[in-house]
């Protein structure tokens, strides 16, 4: 029978300890949940938790938007790159890029010696226009060069482009509306032999030589022809393309 008491005692002791523990816990529970000091703190923490959550959400959304913008920008950069390549090709065609290569240099000057002789010779019929280079001389010479396959031409560093005119005002020659001063140096890029023989067998150079003008023609392995520095007037032009966007672009002043 004594064994039973021992068991009972142990169980009672355990139960007692447990009861005490439960009581203490519950007491703490009640005590702390009623502590207003901590309640405020808890409220602040809860609010902070919500706030940081919102911030995190907003950051995520913003990152997504930035990503989209960056992608869009990369696309536009590609477009701009393609456009600038196209523009570079157009600038080359237009004459806005200096070129180099083999070619010839022709220099023409007014016939000052001839003029002096005619004036002092006193033979009577001195006509100054017989002794100066005219705009037409340059114009026809340039046409011969183009016909012979010149790939770029400049007179006294004035690049000839689409729309370039060679004319005189009084006794001054204008190219690209820039006044040129003799001697005139014509540079032409292309096969030097072809260009030289075209001029020598042409009309203008033999004519000027015959008249006693100081003329020289030099074949060159490498010369440079400068870029056009002027502008173009396109105020009356509209591109007649099927691309309406390009049409709009020029319609604007």
């Amino acid at each position, binding site marked *: 029978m004594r064994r039973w008491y021992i068991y009972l005692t142990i169980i009672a002791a355990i139960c007692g300890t*447990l009861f005490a523990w439960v009581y203490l816990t519950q007491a703490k529970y009640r005590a702390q949940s009623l502590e207003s000091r901590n309640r405020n703190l808890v409220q602040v923490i809860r609010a902070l938790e919500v706030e940081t959550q919102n911030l995190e959400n907003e950051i995520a959304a913003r990152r997504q938007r930035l990503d989209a913008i960056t992608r869009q920008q990369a696309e536009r950069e590609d477009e701009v790159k393609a456009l600038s390549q196209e523009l570079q090709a*157009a600038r080359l065609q237009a004459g*806005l890029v200096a070129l180099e290569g083999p070619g010839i240099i022709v220099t023409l000057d007014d016939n000052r010696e001839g003029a002096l002789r005619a004036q002092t010779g006193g033979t009577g019929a001195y006509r100054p226009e017989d002794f100066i280079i005219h705009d037409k001389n340059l114009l026809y010479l340039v046409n011969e060069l183009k016909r012979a396959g010149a790939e770029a031409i400049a007179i006294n560093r004035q690049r000839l482009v689409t729309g370039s005119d060679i004319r005189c005002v009084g006794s001054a020659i204008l190219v690209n509306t820039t006044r040129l001063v003799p001697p005139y140096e014509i540079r032409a890029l292309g096969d030097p032999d072809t260009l030289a023989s075209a001029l020598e067998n042409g009309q203008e150079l033999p004519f000027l030589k015959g008249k006693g003008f100081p003329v020289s023609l030099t074949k060159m392995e490498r010369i440079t022809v400068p870029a056009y520095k002027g502008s*173009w007037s396109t105020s009356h032009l509209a591109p007649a393309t099927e691309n309406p966007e390009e049409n709009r672009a020029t319609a604007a002043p």
Partner: protein
Amino acid sequence: MAAIRLRWQLLLAVVMFFLGLMLSVQFKAQQALSTALEYQSTETLVAMWKDLNAKKELLQKELEQLQTQETSLGQQSFAGKNAKEELQRELVKLKTATGLVAVSGPGITVTLSGDSPVIALDLVDLINELWASGAEAIAVNGHRINALSAVGETRVGDEYFLTLDGRRLFYPIVIQALGDPDTLEKGLTFPGGLIDNFNTLYAIYPRIEKHERLQLPPAPVINWRYARPEAESTGAKS
């Protein structure tokens, strides 16, 4: 004896049952106590509050950075769009001016009937005079003039004919010039001017007509065999 033993066992089972129940309740209570904010010690709560405050500050900084980034990206994007539009405008202008695209606009036509012989130099003069008079684009018999266009003349047997860029020109030769029609016409017809010379010196009587709208095709693209861009040249901006 057997009956007493059974009773004891029963009693023990009941006691054990309650003991288990109490243990589980206590365990749950302990668990709730350790997780719920309300049952944390003040020190823990203060530490948590500090942590959260620090986190919030960091997040706000990050957000500000993102906002700045977005603003500057937006400006860049706007600048990029502007750059693109600028490039497009420049491209169209260059292409238009130099003959890389078909163009339309007001202008005049000069028609040479071929009744009186016209030589290559007459045509060279005429084209040059049109440029000088403010022409913005010129085509001869539908062939657009570019920077390298040349007029020539060729004799095949008894036949003599003009060429433009190596192609035969048939009469009537029609020169189309785009630009202000009045200015262009005056540029040719003033006393002592080109047409005057044509009339009196060569008995050439070109017919000049003004048009509200002419359309010219693109010029041939220039292909260089000998020339190449100058090595260090970046070219001049127009």
